[in-house]
């Protein structure tokens, strides 16, 4: 259904009452599952994702020569009840496959895969509820789970979305879109490496004037850095707890 964003230009408040540069509430926990090597639970607003890491463990021996680095396998399962209307997504869903591919390639270049020759790291993500920024949430959850699993990586990979209000005269960027806004506005998802400006993942799927891309990207990159701060705090809080209880 078409949603009226015209009010934004008046109140400068978004549908959920945020300002243009506000993130939604991010709540994250790590090592939530005892069985896995690493695990995390992440909420970005109403988008909720569970991620578990298994490995690095010896996977199926592929007889190919290039076994010098460990493989990263990603499996994303979207719960039927996660969306607004119940939808069963099969394995063959191309959107999910694309996301899996994105995570695989993104993390195999950020993890120090050469430390674990011919072994496999399996990332399993379960999407419990989706309300926008799904890819970003998956990337963040995966980062946390991999840190929890103690797998060396060059830096956090943090992601968030940025959109831009439709009305041409004042195209203002918006940070961290929710589901409704994603349906209505052009937006992109950016995954940034740590505090740098280096973009590991960039996905833009809606038609938009080239001038507006710049603003969106800038906001997204900035947002990613804030996300990094939050995730880092989660890791530290958990780390301190472990260190103290370890006594």
């Amino acid at each position, binding site marked *: 259904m078409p949603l009226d964003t015209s009010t934004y230009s008046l109140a400068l408040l978004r549908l959920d009452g945020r300002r243009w540069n506000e993130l939604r509430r991010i709540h994250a926990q790590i090592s939530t599952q005892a069985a896995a090597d690493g695990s995390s639970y992440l909420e970005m607003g109403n988008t909720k994702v569970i991620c578990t890491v298994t490995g690095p463990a010896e996977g199926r021996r592929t007889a190919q020569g290039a076994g010098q680095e460990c493989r990263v396998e990603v499996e994303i399962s979207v719960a039927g009840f996660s969306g607004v209307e119940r939808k069963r997504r099969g394995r063959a869903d191309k959107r999910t496959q694309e996301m899996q591919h994105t995570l695989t390639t993104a993390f195999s270049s950020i993890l120090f895969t050469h430390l674990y020759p*011919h072994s496999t790291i399996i990332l399993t993500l379960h999407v419990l509820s989706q309300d926008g920024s799904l890819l970003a949430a998956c990337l963040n959850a995966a980062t946390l789970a991999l840190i929890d699993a103690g797998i060396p990586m*060059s830096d956090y990979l943090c992601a968030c979305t940025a959109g831009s209000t439709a009305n041409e005269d004042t195209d203002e960027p918006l940070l961290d879109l929710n589901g409704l806004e994603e349906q209505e506005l052009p937006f992109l998802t950016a995954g940034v490496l740590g505090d740098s400006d280096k973009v590991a993942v960039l996905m833009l799927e809606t038609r938009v004037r080239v001038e507006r891309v710049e603003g969106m990207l800038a906001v997204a990159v900035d947002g990613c850095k804030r996300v990094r701060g939050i995730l*880092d705090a*989660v890791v530290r809080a958990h780390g301190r707890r472990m260190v103290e*209880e370890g006594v």
Partner: protein
Amino acid sequence: MPFTILPPAPAIPFNHPHHYAASDNDSLSSADEMDIDTTTARPTKRARLSRSLVTPGETVTSDPQWMRGHGTYIPSDSTSIVSTVAGTVLKTNKLLSITPLRARYTPEIGDLVIGRIAEVQSRRWRVDISAPLLGALPLSAINLPGGILRKRTAVDELNMRAFFSEGDLLVAEVQSVFADGSASLHTRSLKYGKLRNGYFMAVSGLQFGYRARGGEVDVVLGVNGFIWIARHVEQAKDVAVTRLEESVSLSIYSSQNDEIGPQTRREIARVAGCIRALVEAGARVDEDMVVRAYEASLELDFETEGREDAGGEFLGGEKGKRIVEMALGSATS
């Protein structure tokens, strides 16, 4: 009837900038004092105590005097050492490495590990020791029945499953580590070999390997986080080399459990319960903690003798917490 609506769970309060600053400071300032307290290869209690916690991408030090060790890397465009894992800084002489808070077991020579046979290949077994790669146990690295001195024959190669077959548990020592990080094991000692008469548990993040004895049970804590709790069997003391043949009889490779009395089983269950309680509380699991927890549980049962809130044999929940508290208390005191 009145009812109250609970507010939604608040987001965990973060004042991360402060955390940031703090940790950065001590990671650098506490450098000297670190030198003193952590000089062993393995992190000691003090080392874990050190509050210098770092996370991936964080610059540990830009001082070129340090050499980078595990868990760190030096970006191509700079000289400062950057952490790649979340963990505590560990400085050995001039070597600077990070021990991750939690990670898969990485084999090191001399580690006492518990493993499960994954495959049987020609002249060697592949053993799952929860490391990135399966460990290898060569046929040449086990005690053959009929004595250590006996030469290995083609017959042995044919019926390797008579010694270890898929799914068998064993305790072994890491003899060497290959270039790709996979371990080669050996059981050439009476301390090692096939496991039976007991109960298997897996916990994560053990730091030391132990063989402990509480009451009637033997406890083997593998460095790789696998734990074996078994009925105590009398080892033949100071075996003369001449009498090895008897001690190394075929029985050491039998998969048959001996007779285990109900009392022993209860003891085994108790130790397991203690360890589980420790793990749930996130407390350290090592020899003295296990022993303390075990004693604490006995004490607790003694106190609550005959009271209805005794809670039976189950060592979880509240009782578990109490036990851990008592154990920790006795540890610090």
